[in-house]
C-alpha cells in the first residue's frame, strides 16, 4: 500500500533557518514571559506552541521522518488522527508569530519578497511565500496537500511549491464555490481522495474511530470558540481588538495544537477572562466609543493599527475576518460519508474567511448584517487589501448595505502584510479623520 517516495533531504539553509527561527522565538518568549501583563500572557500558549510547531518540524527534517505540508483548509483533523506531522506554509512564510511581533523581521521579509519580481498587485503573502520558497526556507515535505481556497491566489504558491519540489507528490483539492448540498457532497469526495493520497504516500491507514475521537475534541473546541465570541457582544467589549484571531491558529493552523488539550485550556482561559470582565462591567478600552467590524484578518502590522484605533480613536475591533457569532457545524460521526460531509462544510464553507472570500456575495452580506446586529457595531471597516479583490469589488454594495443598516463604513486601500503600502502616518490620518467625523 505504501508508495512513500524517498526524496532528497531539505536544503541546509532550510534546516539552518529553522534553527535560527526557533532560537529567535525562544528569546522573544523570554521577553513575553517577563512582561507581567495578564492580558498579553493570555496569548502565551499560542506563542509557545508555535515554537513547538517549528521544533517538531525540525525534528522530522533532521531525523528523516516523513511529513506532509498543508494549510488550515486542508483538514488538520486527518493528520492528527493519522499521527502525521504537517508543516504549515504560513508557519514558514511568516515565521510563526515573528512577522507580527518584530517589525524589523517583517521589513527583512518584505525586502526579500521585493526581489522575487512578482507583480506588485499580487498579494504580498504570495510574494512572501515565493521568496521563502526561492530562498530554500521550506523544508522539503514528503507530500503536500494543495488548497485552492480561501483565495484563488493561493494557487500561485502551490505552483511554486510544485516547481521547487517536483518529486514531492501533491494533492490538489478542488473546492466548490457554492455552499449547498451539491457543493458539500462534491468536496466530501475530494476529502476522501485526500485521505487516500495521504495513506498512499505515508504508509499510514486512517483509523476512522480515531478520527471520531479527534473530531469530538475539535467539536468541543469550536463550541468554546463560539462561546468566547458571544462574550464579545457585551458593551463594553471585554477584549481588545482582534482578540479572537489567534484562536484560528491554535485550532486550525498548527499541527501541534489541533485537537490538543492545550487548545481547550487556552480557550477556557480566554472565556474565563472575558466572563470576569463582563461580570465586573469592564471593557478592554476605558472609554469605548466605537465598536467595529474589520472585514479582514489581522494585518502583520496589527500592533500599530490597534494602537491608533484603541488609543486615539477609542475604537475596538470586536469582530474580524476570522471570527463571528455564526455557528460552526458539529460533525455527524455516524458514517464515513457524514464525517467527510461535515468536514467539507467546516473547512470549505463554515470558516468565515472562506465563506466570504470563496463564496457568493450573499454570504458576505448575510454575515455583515448578522455581525452588525449581534455585536451592536456602529462601524464597518472594509479595507481593500491588494490581494482581497473580493472586498474591493463589493465596495458599492457594502456602502448600500451599511447605509440601510445605519452604520458608518470606512473604506481604504492597504496591504495586509506590507505596512509600507499605507505608511503609519497615512493610516493614522485615515482613521482619526474618519472617527472624528462620525
Amino acid at each position: 500500500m505504501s508508495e512513500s517516495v524517498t526524496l532528497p533531504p531539505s536544503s541546509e539553509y532550510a534546516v539552518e533557518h529553522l534553527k535560527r527561527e526557533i532560537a529567535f522565538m525562544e528569546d522573544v518568549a523570554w521577553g513575553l514571559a517577563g512582561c507581567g501583563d495578564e492580558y498579553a500572557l493570555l496569548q502565551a500558549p499560542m506563542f509557545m506552541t508555535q515554537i513547538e510547531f517549528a521544533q517538531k518540524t525540525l525534528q522530522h527534517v533532521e531525523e528523516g521522518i516523513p511529513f506532509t505540508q498543508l494549510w488550515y483548509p486542508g483538514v488538520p483533523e486527518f493528520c492528527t488522527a493519522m499521527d502525521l506531522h504537517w508543516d504549515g506554509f504560513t508557519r514558514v512564510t511568516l515565521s510563526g508569530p515573528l512577522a507580527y511581533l518584530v517589525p524589523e523581521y517583517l521589513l527583512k521579509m518584505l525586502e526579500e519578497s521585493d526581489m522575487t519580481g512578482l507583480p506588485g498587485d499580487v498579494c504580498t503573502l504570495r510574494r512572501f511565500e515565493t521568496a521563502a520558497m526561492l530562498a530554500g526556507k521550506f523544508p522539503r515535505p514528503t507530500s503536500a496537500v494543495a488548497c485552492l481556497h480561501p483565495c484563488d491566489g493561493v494557487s500561485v504558491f502551490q505552483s511554486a511549491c510544485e516547481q521547487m519540489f517536483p518529486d514531492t507528490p501533491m494533492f490538489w483539492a478542488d473546492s466548490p464555490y457554492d455552499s449547498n448540498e451539491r457543493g458539500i457532497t462534491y468536496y466530501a469526495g475530494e476529502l476522501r481522495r485526500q485521505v487516500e493520497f495521504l495513506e498512499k504516500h505515508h504508509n499510514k491507514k486512517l483509523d476512522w474511530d480515531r478520527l471520531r475521537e479527534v473530531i469530538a475534541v475539535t467539536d468541543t473546541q469550536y463550541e468554546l470558540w463560539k462561546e468566547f465570541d458571544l462574550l464579545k457582544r457585551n458593551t463594553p467589549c471585554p477584549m481588545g481588538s482582534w482578540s479572537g484571531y489567534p484562536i484560528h491558529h491554535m485550532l486550525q493552523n498548527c499541527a501541534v495544537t489541533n485537537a490538543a488539550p492545550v487548545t481547550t485550556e487556552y480557550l477556557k482561559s480566554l472565556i474565563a477572562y472575558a466572563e470576569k470582565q463582563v461580570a465586573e462591567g469592564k471593557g478592554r478600552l476605558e472609554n469605548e466609543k466605537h465598536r467595529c467590524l474589520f472585514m479582514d484578518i489581522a494585518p502583520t502590522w496589527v500592533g500599530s493599527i490597534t494602537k491608533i484605533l484603541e488609543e486615539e480613536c477609542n475604537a475596538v475591533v470586536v469582530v474580524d475576518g476570522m471570527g463571528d457569532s455564526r455557528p460552526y457545524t458539529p460533525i455527524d460521526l455516524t458514517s464515513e460519508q457524514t464525517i467527510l460531509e461535515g468536514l467539507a462544510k467546516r473547512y470549505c464553507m463554515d470558516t468565515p474567511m472562506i465563506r466570504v472570500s470563496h463564496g457568493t456575495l450573499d454570504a458576505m452580506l448575510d454575515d455583515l448584517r448578522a455581525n452588525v446586529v449581534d455585536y451592536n457595531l456602529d462601524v464597518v471597516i472594509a479595507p481593500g487589501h491588494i490581494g482581497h479583490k473580493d472586498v474591493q469589488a463589493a465596495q458599492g454594495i457594502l456602502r448600500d448595505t451599511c447605509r440601510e443598516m445605519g452604520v458608518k463604513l470606512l473604506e481604504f486601500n492597504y496591504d495586509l502584510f506590507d505596512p509600507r503600502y499605507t505608511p503609519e502616518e497615512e493610516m493614522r490620518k485615515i482613521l482619526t479623520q474618519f472617527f472624528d467625523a462620525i
Partner: protein
Amino acid sequence: MNRMNRLDDHIVEIEAFVQSTIDAGRQVREWNLPERDTLVGDIGPSRNRMVFARDTAAELGHPTADSCLGVLWTSDSDLVSDGRVRLIGPDLAEIVGQHSPLGQIVVLGSSGFGEDTEPFALVSLRMVDGIPGVMSRISPDTAWYRMSRGAVDGGLDFRALGREMMRNWKRNIPEVESIEILFVTSDSADLERLKAIARAAHEVTAAMRTADWRRKGIDLSCAISHCGSCADQSACTAIARAGSLSHAG
C-alpha cells in the same frame, strides 16, 4: 405573479403540515393573542442581554439539535391568522437542561411591502430584541436561541416569546398588518418536513433578492462570484473578446 403571493403555496404547505400533525392525534398548542397583550415586561427595542453558558436553562436550535427558520409573506389575508402562536412539541419549561431542535416559521400578512426584501433579513436578526433572558444567533435559514434560567423560571414560554417577536416585527416593519408564528420543538422528523418547505420558500425569496439587487444595477451572481456557474458566460466572453479586439484595432 404578484411578488406578494409567490410564497402562498408554501404557506399552504405549512398549514397542511400542521393539520397532518393534528390528524395524527398529536398535540398542537395554539394561542390567539390580541395586540395589546403584553406578556413580557416591555423594555423596548434594546439589545439582547448576555446569557452566559452557566446561566442557560435551554438552547433551542443548537447546532447539535437541528434548526429551521422560515419567513414567509402574503397579501392574502385568509392565509394569516393575526396574533396566532402555535407550538408542536414541548414548551420551554419542559426542555430545561436540553439542546432542543427548533423549527420557526413566521408568516407575515400585508397588502404590500414595497420593492425590497432586504429589510426582512435585517428584522429577522432582531426578532428577539428586548426579550429579557433570550439571546439569539440567526442565519438566513436557522435560528439558535439561548434561554436564561431566570427567564424560564420567571415563566417565559413560547406563548410569550411568540407575542414579543410579533411586536418586534410590527414595530420594525410598519407594513406588517398581520403575523403568526409556528414553533416546532418535537423531533428531527418534523424538522425535516419543515425544512423541505422552508428550503423551497428560501429559493423563492433568494430569487427575489437577486432581482432586487439587479434593479439597483448589481448582478449578485456576477459581482464577485464564479463565472463557471453563470448562464451568461458565453455571451459575456464574446462581449469581452469583442471589446479587446476593438482595443487592439
